[in-house]
Structures are given as structure tokens and as C-alpha cells.
């Protein structure tokens, strides 16, 4: 069975500090991977997607970056956090090119002060 793990569960960070969030998928080779941001109130915003190792496409510009250093790992980062980065970050995977359902991780709650 496939499992998706996100770390950390929650973070409280200062404005201007760096950030690194991680996501690991086990039990599935070569998945498509996605990062989403969810503001308070619930609207989902897709941030990045990746269909293969080393290849990441940006969907929106939010002063964040993403990398896929391994087939089963997706990293979201920034060198300088903004207040607007606060929210809930969700990682997801799917089998194919967007035609398939997505499987979401448990999320990371980020509070920027």
C-alpha cells in the first residue's frame, strides 16, 4: 500500500526566516507530485507539480520554490518567509498526467509571526 508522509506536522517561524517542508511517498514509483497551499477559509491553491525527478513546474509565484531530489521526495522551501505564507501546506500524488485522482498527505500547518 502507498503511504504519504509530510514533515513537520506544524511549524511556527519568524518573518524573514528560511523554511523547508518535506513530503515522502512510499510504495509507488514515479508518481506525479503536487504541492498545495490552503489559506484559512479553505481555498486550495496549487503551487507546484512534478512528473519526474529533478523536474518541477511552478503554477503560481508565491516566493516559494520546490525541488524533487528523489523519485519519492518533494521539498518546498523559501529563504525568507512572509506573513502571507501562513497556512496549511498539502502534498499530493497521482498516477498519471492529471487524469487521475490525487492522494493527499496529512498536511503541515505553518504559522509565520
Amino acid at each position: 500500500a502507498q503511504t504519504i508522509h509530510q514533515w513537520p506536522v506544524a511549524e511556527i517561524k519568524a518573518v524573514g526566516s528560511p523554511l523547508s517542508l518535506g513530503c515522502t511517498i512510499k510504495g509507488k514509483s514515479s508518481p506525479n507530485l503536487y504541492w498545495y497551499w490552503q489559506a484559512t477559509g479553505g481555498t486550495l491553491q496549487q503551487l507546484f507539480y512534478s512528473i519526474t525527478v529533478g523536474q518541477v513546474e511552478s503554477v503560481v509565484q508565491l516566493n516559494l520554490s520546490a525541488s524533487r531530489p528523489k523519485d519519492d521526495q518533494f521539498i518546498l522551501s523559501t529563504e525568507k518567509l512572509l506573513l502571507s505564507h501562513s497556512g496549511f501546506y498539502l502534498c499530493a500524488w497521482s498516477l498519471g498526467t492529471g487524469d487521475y485522482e490525487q492522494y493527499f498527505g496529512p498536511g503541515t500547518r505553518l504559522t509565520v509571526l
Partner: protein
Amino acid sequence: AQSVTQPDARVTVSEGASLQLRCKYSYSGTPYLFWYVQYPRQGLQLLLKYYSGDPVVQGVNGFEAEFSKSNSSFHLRKASVHWSDSAVYFCALSATSGGNYKPTFGKGTSLVVHP
């Protein structure tokens, strides 16, 4: 361009009542459609999906949805809700042709079930 509209930001029902959550989509081709549920402080979970065939699809926990191409809709229904169904429900669309890596989500409908 594709879009998903969930016109009701919040729906309140009593336990045992029937439920319909509305979803309208815009897409020129044949869409793949999904309903997801998000419980507080958790990720999204798939409730059901429609790819083709019978327009009424069954999901988990007694949920079903009906696809209507003529109305561009994919409404979610449940005959009798339970207080544990309180959550946020998202309708989503994916393109049928390869190369589109941006699944489109609606803004979500918050369901509150009163005991």
C-alpha cells in the same frame, strides 16, 4: 480554460436530513470529476470519482454524485447525513488529454450537520 464552481460556501442541515452539495464545471471536453472531503486539520480524502459510463456514481459512506453533461454539473448527494459528515467538501476536475497537470478545485463547501 477549465473551472469549477461550488456556489454554496456553507450548508447547514440537521442530522438525518438529505443533502445535496452543488458543483458546476466548465470544460470544453469530457472531464474527469471528483469529490473530496476534508475533515478538520487533515488532508483531503477521495469520496468518489466519475470517468465515464453511468452518470450516477457511488462513493464511500453512502455518498453518491450525478454527472450531467447538459447542465455541466456534478452534484453530491446523501440520503441521510450524520453529524460526523461535518467537513469541507471539494469538487475537482481533471482534463482528459495528457499534458494538463493542473487539476482544478472548487473553493469548497463547508457542511455543518446539527445533531
